[in-house]
């Protein structure tokens, strides 16, 4: 029944499928930026009406992604939380959550932009201006930068003193009208509105004034220290704060 030679070998469907998938992949890389843009609009529409939250798991489905470099989510509450300010300051200080809540509050509503691409529009953070805390401790002459440490024991971040004194850099304890949850870095996290979100350290526990910028955790792995949204890390996202 079978013919001999090349005919009986059958068509090389496997090779065609492999090449076809490779071709689709290449086309996806070439046009993916445009397609994902269109898709983001559709998904944003769908996920706003999706009670199950499943669409959030689709690429570009919106919402926050959870990133943690330690092995578990650290928990602190109003009784055992402390934020220390030390380093090159005249008056080192330690604040409880209640102390921070009693101070002058600042509310920011801006987009959150992650360096991995996702963006969450109109997110509200409120808390204390970092420059107020610095002013209360009195930054010494040699102090030019800030090192942030976190009670997960691993993460660190940094800012120059000028950046730290901006009016869109806050020590946040409220997010979208409620206390910052542990998963989002509560009870207190840093929020650096104009920069990619890895600068906004979660589980903030220490503010140390230093004489030079000490690169933070991800910055040891190639991320930019100066992480302005749209002007760093080779990305061109729309700025989140001016």
């Amino acid at each position, binding site marked *: 029944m*079978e013919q*001999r*030679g*090349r005919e*009986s*070998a*059958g*068509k*090389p*469907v*496997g*090779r*065609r*499928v*492999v*090449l*076809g*998938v*490779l071709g*689709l*992949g290449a086309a*996806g*890389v*070439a*046009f*993916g*930026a445009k*397609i*994902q843009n269109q898709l983001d609009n559709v998904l944003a529409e769908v996920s706003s009406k999706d009670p199950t939250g499943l669409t*959030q*798991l*689709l*690429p*570009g489905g919106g*919402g*926050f*992604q*959870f*990133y*943690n*470099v*330690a*092995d*578990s*989510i650290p928990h602190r509450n109003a009784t055992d939380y402390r934020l220390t300010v030390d380093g090159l300051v005249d008056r080192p200080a330690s604040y409880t959550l209640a102390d921070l809540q009693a101070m002058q509050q600042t509310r920011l509503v801006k987009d959150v932009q992650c360096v991995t*691409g996702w963006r969450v529009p109109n997110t509200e953070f409120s808390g204390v201006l970092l420059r107020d805390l610095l002013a209360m401790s009195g930054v010494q002459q040699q102090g030019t930068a800030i090192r942030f440490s976190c009670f997960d024991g691993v993460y660190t971040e940094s800012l120059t003193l000028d950046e730290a004194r901006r009016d869109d850099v806050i020590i946040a304890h409220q997010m979208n009208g409620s206390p910052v949850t542990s*998963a989002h870095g509560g009870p207190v996290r840093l929020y650096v509105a104009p920069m990619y979100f890895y600068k906004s350290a979660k589980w903030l526990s220490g503010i140390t004034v230093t004489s030079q910028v000490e690169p933070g955790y991800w910055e040891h*792995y190639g991320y930019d220290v100066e992480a302005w949204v749209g002007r760093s*890390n*080779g*990305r*061109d996202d729309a700025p989140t704060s001016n």
Partner: protein
Amino acid sequence: MPLPRTEPAAGGAELRRFTTAERWVHRTTSTLMMAAILTAAFLYVPQLAELVGRRRLLVVVHEWSGVLLPLPLAVGLGFRSVRADLRRLNRFRPGDRGWAWRAVRHGTRRAGPAGKFNAGQKLYAATIAGATLVMVGTGLILWFPHLAALDVRTGATFVHDWLALVIGVLVIGHIRMAMKDPEARHGMRTGWVGRPWAKREHALWERETRARTEPGGAEPADTAPPGDHG
């Protein structure tokens, strides 16, 4: 159900389905694939990410398990048995197209006789191979972002994320088929399958193995002639 065995039973009751080289290619590939999929899930799904943290470690495991995925098969190409089965997987026999349609319409049980690999297995192998190569390519673009322009990286992210979902579905389907067929798993574990199973699942291959031992038997139904690499 067949008991585990490592030696063929007497009287040709068992058929050699996979050589040691083939089983090691499968074993190492599946280990790497599962490592890549699980780390992907724990990096990507917020609820899972909250459970384990350790993002840096997960990233490193994901990158290396992913980039090494083509290696087992590449090494396997040095073995005759692996090349022979790759040729079988590559080529569609005349009946394979019909088999695929019948499998879609009536299920694989009533799709008719198949060779050593049925059309579904051939399509799966080719699709997952192509998809893996695309994932390695796009993954490398994301791993070394300074090598590509932003538009290319966005495109690579798009392909990597969506194709990951497709691969997840394919692999779950692949594992589900294996779960339903203990003797198929036994064949991949030991290299041997029972003749009744082969007759039921891969009738043309079973006939072919008999033809090989009986003089004047029929031509192998889905083997490319020696030396024909297409």
